[in-house]
């Protein structure tokens, strides 16, 4: 469970949000939305533990390592889809077989691209490869920054299915998105300045 109390953040002398308090229980997704520059990405980075210049209290309840996918996708252009995912698993302390990696790629319909370097893929294909991490890794907390950008409608559908499965098994999801998301257990948070 995630509990946030009195979270305030200022960037470049501009207040992004002040005294923000909310709670997200297990099995629930929180969608953060708001205009460009309203601090969505900063809030996600604070929750992930990357951005530290804030005031307030973020409590995850238990030790956890979030699966964070941000604007920078975390893929090496010079490594193949398979190598990239294998590395993602390794850095998460997860021992993975290559067959599992290939299976995850197949889930995002990138099964035919396992040996292609991510640098030579299209934007949308890269998005899919980075989302294949959701099928490979077992982190209970997901933090996704605009996961629906640049992927097509079948991709969206596939992602929604995976998210619902994650939530029903007691996971937590915090995501930012401009568009409405067809999720069952959805909580909304709008950032205004």
């Amino acid at each position, binding site marked *: 469970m995630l509990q946030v109390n009195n979270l305030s953040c200022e960037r470049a*002398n501009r207040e992004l949000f002040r005294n923000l308090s909310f709670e997200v229980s297990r099995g629930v997704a929180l969608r953060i939305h708001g205009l460009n520059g309203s601090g969505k990405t900063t809030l996600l980075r604070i929750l992930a533990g990357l951005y530290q*210049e804030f005031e*307030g*209290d*973020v*409590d995850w309840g238990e030790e956890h390592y979030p699966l964070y996918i941000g604007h920078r996708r975390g893929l090496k252009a010079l490594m193949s889809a398979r190598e990239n995912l294998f590395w993602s698993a390794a850095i998460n302390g997860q021992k993975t077989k290559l067959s599992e990696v290939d299976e995850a790629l197949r889930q995002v319909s990138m099964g035919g691209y396992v040996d292609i370097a991510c640098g030579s893929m299209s934007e949308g294909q890269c998005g899919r490869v980075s989302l294949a991490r959701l099928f490979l890794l077992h982190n209970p907390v997901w933090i996704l920054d605009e996961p629906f950008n640049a992927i097509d409608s079948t991709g969206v559908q596939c992602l929604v299915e995976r998210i619902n499965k994650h939530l029903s098994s007691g996971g937590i999801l915090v995501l930012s998105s401009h568009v409405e998301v067809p999720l069952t257990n959805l909580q909304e948070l709008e950032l205004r300045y």
Partner: protein
Amino acid sequence: MKRMVNRKQKTEPGGCALKMGNFFHRLGSPRPFYELSGVVLPVAGVLTLISLVVGSIWALGFAPPDYQQGESVRIMYIHVPSAIVAQSSYMMMGIAGVIFLIWRIKIADIALQCAAPIGASLTFLALVTGAIWGKPTWGAWWVWDARLTSTLVLFFLFIGVIVLRSAKDGSEAVGRATAMLAVVGLVNLPIIKFSVDWWFTLHQPSSFSLTESPSMPAEMWLPLLVMVIGFYLFFFFTWMYRVRTEILKREHRSQWVRSIDDV
């Protein structure tokens, strides 16, 4: 991570209440510091002026020449204080860096940032006066020995801190990176201090120590002491002046800064 708690002190409304209990806490936030330093600053300025004027006249006009170095010994009255205060200011920067990295007190970042240019100038002064002094006494402007080289490194470290801090103005991450650099650079201080004892060097060992009486007569070390105090006060005065300016710069949007009309 499990839980992250960040509490930064906020700029409280109201003047500077000087109750000892939260004295240091309040001093750590910009506004009380600004108000308190406004009282201290003129006093420090007057004391700086007095001690530097008295010290200079005494040291340059009335202190005796050395039996061997003659009149050139008077360079000591500039060289030694500037070297001492330069090292102290790096020490202060290092401590401010540790404080900023651990407790994130904003004033520590400002203190660090404002000490660097003064420290760099004092180190430069120490190096230049040392060279001028070295020519008549040793016979060389500069020798590449441990004391001189490590002092040169000190100068470069100050420059590094200045350059890194100014890479992105006002960014707290850069502030912390700078603090980190200042802390790493602390290893140089013991090297400067002990270089004259550890390695063979032309530079004479320290004439002062806590355990023994100074190896120079009172009519020489007294003016030197006045000059050292004067340089410390000078550092303190200019540093505080810079800190106040920096506070105004950073807090220029806040109510209390806008309401100051005697700027």
